[in-house]
């Protein structure tokens, strides 16, 4: 086997050989069976590959329409995905805040309704000397209180000796 011939075939390929190189190879392969086999294989390779690349699938007329439709669909999916991802990031914080607010509201209502009567603020009707005196004006003459009664009401009753208790 002639290594030079083999190297020529492998390095340059059948299509890359010059006329002189082809002539050299063809002369040599008349005598060398192994190089003939290598040369035949190289020729077959070139023919087969040429036939393969000649087979082409043509682009369809509405291919660009389908590409644009796919792009638009992808955009709308991405927008949905962005909102979804944002929500996934913030939902623990938002949920915790809502839970605190709800707990505070519930606690407030519970505390209000559970307050005891003694704790309820009691505001007795207050009356003052002025009220007594002013209300006196509504009463008839016989019902009006006299001065002694006024003093008794404000300062307390006097003893028999006219002294306050």
């Amino acid at each position, binding site marked *: 086997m002639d290594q030079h011939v083999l190297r020529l*075939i*492998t*390095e340059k*390929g059948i*299509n890359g050989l010059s006329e002189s190189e082809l002539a050299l190879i063809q002369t040599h392969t008349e005598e060398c069976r192994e190089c003939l*086999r*290598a040369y*035949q*294989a*190289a*020729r*077959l*390779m*070139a*023919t*087969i*590959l*040429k*036939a*393969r*690349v*000649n*087979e*082409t*699938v*043509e*682009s*369809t007329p509405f*291919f*660009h*329409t*389908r*590409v*644009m439709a*796919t*792009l*638009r669909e*992808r955009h709308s999916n991405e927008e949905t995905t962005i909102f979804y991802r944002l929500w996934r990031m913030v939902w623990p914080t938002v949920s915790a805040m809502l839970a605190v607010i709800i707990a505070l509201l519930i606690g407030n209502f519970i505390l209000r309704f559970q307050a005891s009567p003694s704790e309820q603020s009691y505001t007795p009707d207050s009356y003052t000397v002025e009220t007594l005196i002013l209300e006196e004006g509504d009463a008839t003459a016989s019902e009006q209180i006299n001065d002694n009664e006024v003093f008794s009401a404000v300062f307390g009753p006097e003893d028999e000796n006219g002294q306050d208790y």
Partner: protein
Amino acid sequence: MVLKTDQVADSILVSQACAGDEDAFAEIVRRYSPRVFRIVSRFFRRPTLVEELAQDVFLKAYTHLSDYEGRGSLEGWLSRIATSVCLNALRSARQRPESSLADLTEAEAKWLEASLSNSTVKGYQDAEKDLIAADLADKLFRELSEDDRVVLTFIEGDGLSVKETATLTGWSQAKVKVQLFRARRRMRKVLEELLDSQAQRLVKS
């Protein structure tokens, strides 16, 4: 003067598309879908799969449109994305061969025989012969790696230069050369074994 869309330069279309102009990007798709389909067709044959991958190319291009700096052509940029998408698809689709080279059909065996003897394959139309050859190519590729397939397809099949292949794949030119050398050697070995087995079959029959 208002320019029609098909007269607008690629760079203007790209900046309009980056600004959100859908019509500008639709025009980019219309202009370069034939090129992208051609590249994807190099590696896949099913029309639905080719269209699906071509769509992936443009969706990826849209996502990275702002990365296009305008230094090379938009066509070249899209071609690189298409090559990358195809390579990834080839790698993820890597599976056991459904049929091996030993299971050649009668048509494939006839084609091989005729090709070796430089005669014509009788009984088949030209289009059928091309289909047989393309089927053979797919069977052969299953014996090689994805990188081998890419470099052989572009250089041996498409006739691209090492430099052009390096630009498409993003590899260095040195890597392309080494990969090409190894790929040719591997494919040649596979074909030699196939020819030997065919010769033995003919001797037995």
